[in-house]
């Protein structure tokens, strides 16, 4: 299997985080036989944890790790903060983290979620029927992740509309793997389940507000109807303006216009228009939201130089497939095509990370694709396009670009 990110010269950037204040921290120092007491006073603290040990599945503490009882597998084992205090404090920039010393094997589903888990899909990151996000042993979205090696997993609440960042740190590299659209900051917990060799936790923690990836540009398109996109509004989320108003660069065959606080294409079919904006960084994490649409392509544009040189990630509602295109010198190359079960009628969010040569795309349904290329990897303009195949219904509702590469020192 391709091992994206290994040996490809991934860069990293240090974000010193001095004097972290913990709301909760447990390093599971003192050995304890299964089932361990719940609620449990964290070591070294602060905070207390509640642990669910149901259906015969039990936790123990061995060698500084919270360890499962592998004699009863296949059922939930969860670690909870004991009350909503932590959820109340889960404001943007605070970090929910977990450290896994031995990795998880292929058949382990674990991660962090809000409320409870009631189901999974066989993806690297997946969402259950409740608000849940899991990391599993293997998966397309988490291609850099090596199942058998230690890793850390972070969740950082971010103001609306995109909800949360999820970061995976392994072998000294932190990847911003996903942003999700949870509307509320719920009562998160750590969880794991599986059929065999369930992974251990060496630490779980919650910090006070610390850091989240630097926003670069955003646009909600919430302005008066116009045939001109004008400039970004920097209002991509509620609590932190991102970027200064910057004029959109437009090219292509037809016009788009602002209609009812979204971007809509004027021509009915077989025409497109590119939109890009200077973001100041080539390594970015671009997120967009569709309005419900019956047909057409929702297109991300990244590393745009001009109308003949750019990358495009096209999500087609007609067949649910995401297509990756490189345009170099005016010639288009289809680099990748993955069935991501895209359903634009469900108003999904999409996120596309470009970090050095690596690309990582994901939808809110947990499906996505990866690719790697150095083409155009210094271009700092990014944006979007529309391509309708019939009815004039496809619309972008929101656009945001964050800085991509990152290391959080926890």
């Amino acid at each position: 299997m391709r091992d994206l990110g290994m040996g490809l010269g991934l860069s990293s950037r240090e974000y010193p985080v001095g004097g972290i204040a913990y709301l909760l921290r447990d390093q599971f120092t003192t050995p304890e036989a299964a089932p361990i007491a719940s609620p449990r006073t964290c070591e070294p603290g602060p905070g207390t944890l509640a642990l669910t040990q149901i259906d015969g599945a039990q936790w123990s503490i061995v060698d500084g790790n919270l360890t499962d009882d592998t004699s009863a597998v296949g059922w939930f084992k969860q670690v909870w903060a004991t009350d909503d205090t932590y959820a109340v404090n889960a404001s943007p920039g605070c970090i929910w983290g977990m450290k896994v010393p031995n990795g998880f094997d292929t058949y382990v589903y674990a991660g962090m979620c809000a409320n409870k888990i009631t189901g999974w899909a066989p993806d690297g990151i997946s969402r259950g029927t409740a608000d849940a996000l899991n990391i599993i042993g293997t998966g397309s979205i988490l291609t850099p992740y090596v199942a058998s090696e230690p890793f850390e997993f972070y969740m950082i609440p971010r103001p609306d509309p995109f909800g949360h960042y999820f970061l995976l740190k392994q072998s000294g590299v932190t990847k911003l793997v996903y942003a999700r659209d949870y509307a509320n900051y719920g009562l998160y917990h750590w969880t794991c389940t599986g059929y065999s060799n369930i992974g251990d936790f060496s630490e779980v923690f919650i910090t006070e507000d610390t850091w989240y990836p630097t926003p670069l540009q955003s646009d909600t398109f919430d302005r008066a109807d116009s045939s001109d996109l004008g400039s970004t509004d920097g209002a991509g989320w509620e609590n932190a303006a991102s970027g200064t108003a910057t004029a959109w660069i437009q090219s292509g065959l037809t016009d788009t216009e602002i209609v009812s606080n979204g971007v809509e294409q004027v021509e009915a079919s077989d025409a497109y228009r590119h939109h890009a904006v200077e973001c100041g960084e080539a390594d970015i994490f671009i997120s967009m939201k569709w309005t419900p649409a019956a047909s057409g392509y929702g297109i991300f544009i990244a590393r745009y130089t001009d109308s003949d040189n750019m990358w495009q990630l096209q999500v087609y509602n007609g067949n649910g497939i995401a297509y990756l295109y490189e345009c170099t010198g005016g010639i288009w190359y289809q680099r990748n095509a993955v069935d991501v079960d895209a359903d634009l009628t469900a108003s999904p969010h999409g996120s596309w990370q470009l970090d050095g040569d690596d690309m990582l795309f994901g939808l809110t349904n947990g499906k996505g694709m990866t690719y790697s290329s150095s083409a155009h990897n210094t271009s700092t303009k990014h944006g979007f396009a529309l391509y309708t195949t019939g009815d004039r219904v496809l619309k972008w509702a929101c656009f945001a670009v964050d800085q991509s590469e990152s290391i959080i020192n926890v």
Partner: protein
Amino acid sequence: MYRAHVVTSWISGPDATGKTSWHPKLANDHDVLCEDVTQQLAANIPPAPNEYTVEIVCSEEILDEIEADSAYFVSWSEEIIESPV
């Protein structure tokens, strides 16, 4: 389901989206989605032989069809074992 690497030629013309692009011929001839695993720059694609390698995930039936098609070479394939969860 099976995962396989297949050597195919590039062609220019309408792709699965109906637009003109350079894309693997394999995607036109068989019902598969292709990923370019060479990850080479467009400028570095050798014109002769016009061949490169893509990764596909497909049914055993489609894999049999591709292996029987003399236009393509399957360099390796493996069955994908689904998680029991």
